[in-house]
């Protein structure tokens, strides 16, 4: 949450996201979360979240790239992929409602590879200056 808030501060989004509680409330709009609350997201808040996500993927690009690369050669022992996958499932179990069918699909090791690869690829393609616009277009097309 701290890095999320630091990024919103860096991107001068203080008017839309003035504090960590606002960000926390926005994150709870995700119906897959355990702490889901149905608040209406305003368009400015949606745009702010997109900008933060694109900025985060810019910072994390070397790591995202390494995870994608570790899956390309099946002969290689993909330690990077396995550690990423393990951490992803840990976080989902910790924060998401695991009784939901959609969440069960997310943590199903045999089914979630494609979803994870496509999500990482989407993030890796949105790291340019106008990456937020690209990410928005991709999300509208999902």
């Amino acid at each position: 949450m701290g890095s999320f808030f630091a990024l919103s501060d860096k991107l001068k989004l203080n008017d839309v996201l003035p504090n960590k509680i606002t960000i926390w409330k926005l994150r709870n709009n995700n119906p897959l979360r355990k702490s889901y609350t149905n608040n209406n997201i305003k368009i400015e808040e949606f745009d702010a979240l997109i900008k933060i996500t694109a900025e985060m993927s810019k910072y994390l690009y070397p790591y995202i790239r390494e995870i994608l690369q570790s899956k390309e050669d099946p002969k290689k022992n993909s330690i990077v992929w396995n550690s990423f996958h393990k951490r992803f499932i840990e976080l989902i179990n910790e924060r998401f409602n695991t009784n939901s069918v959609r969440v069960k699909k997310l943590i199903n090791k045999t089914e979630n590879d494609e979803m994870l690869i496509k999500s990482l690829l989407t993030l890796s393609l949105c790291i340019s200056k106008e990456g937020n616009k690209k990410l928005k277009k991709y999300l509208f097309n999902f």
Partner: protein
Amino acid sequence: MLQNKLSFHQSSVSLEIIGLPDYSNNEDKNQISIISEWKLNIIDKPLIEGKIDHLGPIMSAFYTYSNLLITNQIPLYESNLIDIKADNLHMHNIVLKSSKPDVKPLIIKIGNSLLSDIVNCFDQLNESSKVQIKKSCIFNTFPKKVRFPLTNKADFFNIILPPIISICSLSLISYSLIYFYNPIENKDKNELINPK
């Protein structure tokens, strides 16, 4: 005349643009508007180079293909110049066809990491203020669904049909009620209730 050279780098890929500014438009001497040559250098892969005529279609191919890939459509792009298709979820096959006869097509295999490096290099070129290229042909590569969400026939009818049906049914019901309503009889009733 000395040509300008601009490079865009992203991890294992670099894109080099060589050309001249358009002095007739009073452009800065560091600008490139007339591209004479470009080179796409991917580490451990053959060099890809060409003229301006090839740059637009190749960029367009990569943008279209990456969009298809992440929007759950069939990842296949075919043209006279370049074919890109997915081998599997992680690897992609690029076939570059030469316009010259007797030149065999160049086949390159790249993974998701190199694909994103290439697209990011093209993004840097698109966003660079120092290079002027026809951006219309490159940016309009998103599927129609994104650009014109209301042009989808099914969506359009889904939006417009319910209100039309409700208005028609309302008017039909009102007309049928008017048929049963007799104003003279009603007037008589009123007189009986309120005799003057």
